[in-house]
């Protein structure tokens, strides 16, 4: 494997894009990434998407999007791992370019979620879980996270309000990101008074859906080394791990085994440990997922994720800033696109292009994208060269 760099990034604001079709969203992100990379064409396109087949009645996005952006004929395909589809696209592009079989590739995550009714979208999201043994019982995606969160609070003695700092931090950071779905800070009062959606998860524990697309251009590191018009970002670690699809099949439903494994492998590839990570683009689909992800990635002891948040360590001034541009909670969670937003935001931080949300001196960033309730987890370590 040769080293791989991210040469260009592009994104569209997460929101309700009533005027844009799925291909247009993907195209906007792709054209922005190509312009940023200052190249005109790539050899392959990998699309991260979960629900186009269900919500847009459109599968086969690889051919569709590559033709739309003028690349008819290139290698193209969709990769899917529910909410983890986005980072899986980057992973696929990295493997293709790293192997030498493809000399340049685009990874794009895209999802169009606001054309359909909430009930249809909820039902489509539930297909991330086990259809025969979970979803059939009417448990939603939020419901599965609620089952985990209640047991977590019971085992470790946390109160609901102890999770408030996760939501407050993400919204504070999202307020500094022009591409975020929500750009207003929230108070603890707002968190505590939010309506319940699946107890103990309330509206402020959950991330909002949205339409979105984010893309990155991936090339061999040696090809672009020394072209120092700005800090070059390399993919220093990349790993995918899986767990049982159903939460009930895990020996310990309160531990994200796949998150731990993929982070460990990515750290090892990069030759670092969690102490050296400057910031962490975390999969805070729900407050409880942020806590579990911090623990699995080695930033907190088992059951102690909320303590890290309560002590202020997750803010931009803390020891491990998370969701630095709003995370899923405030930037938004356009499911199959989310993992690519995390990557794009990490590159913004590492280049020093994160504006008022900039983490000073950021050199090493971790991104972690979680599919379903932890069944597929993709971790990437990104570094400045």
């Amino acid at each position: 494997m040769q080293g791989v760099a991210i040469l260009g990034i592009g994104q569209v604001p997460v929101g309700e894009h009533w005027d844009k079709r799925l291909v247009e969203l993907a195209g906007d992100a792709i054209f922005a990434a190509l312009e940023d990379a200052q190249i005109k064409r790539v050899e392959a396109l990998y699309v991260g998407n979960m629900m186009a087949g269900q919500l847009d009645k459109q599968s086969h996005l690889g051919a569709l999007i590559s033709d739309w952006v003028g690349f008819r004929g290139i290698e193209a395909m969709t990769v899917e791992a529910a909410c983890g589809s986005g980072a899986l696209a980057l992973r696929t592009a990295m493997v293709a370019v790293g192997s030498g079989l493809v000399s340049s590739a685009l990874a794009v995550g895209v999802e169009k979620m606001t054309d359909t009714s909430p009930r249809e979208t909820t039902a489509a999201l539930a297909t991330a879980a086990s259809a025969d043994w979970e979803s059939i019982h009417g448990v939603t995606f939020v419901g599965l996270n609620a089952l985990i969160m209640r047991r977590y609070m019971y085992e470790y003695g946390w109160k609901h309000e102890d999770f408030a700092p996760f939501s407050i931090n993400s919204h504070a950071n999202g307020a500094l990101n022009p591409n975020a779905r929500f750009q207003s800070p929230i108070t603890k009062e707002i968190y505590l008074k939010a309506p319940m959606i699946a107890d103990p998860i309330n509206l402020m524990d959950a991330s909002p859906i949205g339409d979105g697309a984010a893309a990155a251009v991936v090339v061999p590191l040696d090809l672009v080394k020394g072209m120092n018009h700005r800090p070059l970002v390399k993919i220093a670690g990349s790993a995918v791990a899986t767990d049982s699809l159903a939460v009930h099949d895990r020996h310990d439903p309160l531990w994200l085994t796949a998150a731990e494994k993929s982070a460990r492998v990515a750290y090892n590839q990069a030759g670092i440990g969690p102490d050296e990570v400057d910031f962490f683009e975390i999969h805070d689909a729900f407050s409880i997922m942020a806590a579990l992800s911090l623990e699995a990635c080695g930033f907190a002891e088992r059951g102690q994720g909320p303590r890290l948040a309560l002590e202020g360590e997750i803010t931009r001034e803390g020891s491990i800033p998370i969701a630095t541009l709003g995370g899923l909670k405030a930037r938004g969670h356009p499911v199959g696109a989310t993992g690519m937003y995390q990557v794009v935001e990490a590159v913004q931080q590492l280049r020093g292009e994160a504006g008022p949300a900039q983490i000073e001196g950021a050199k090493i960033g971790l991104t972690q994208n979680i599919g379903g309730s932890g069944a597929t987890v993709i971790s990437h370590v990104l570094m400045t060269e």
Partner: protein
Amino acid sequence: MDIPRHWRLNKQRYALTGEVCPHCQAKIFPPRDVCPECGGEAKTEFGFSGKGEIYSYTNIYNAPEGYEENIPYTVALVKLEEGPMITAQLTDLGDQPLEIGMPVEMITRKIRSDGDERGLLIYGYKFRPLVSA
């Protein structure tokens, strides 16, 4: 939803029929043919008692299509006394406050009514507070 898809799971939905691993004796539900504990082949049928306790629970207020008529309804992770954990709805709760660790037993009920043109009704296991004998 297709009828065969549900018909072929009737033994599990109506009778909690799982498997026991002939190599390590692990009890397995739902059946999966490869033992998750030892990796050996496991195709020996095993009938679960339907007794267990609540590991966790939640109330669903935003239901997917096909489940709207019972909003809000309660879903739980139930730890079966033979070992495995399963996801199911709780029913017949009355005024009893729910808590983790509460003993429950299986009962067959309507799980969902399909909103599609065929109007398929799907029955299967739910759990209710244990009626002490």
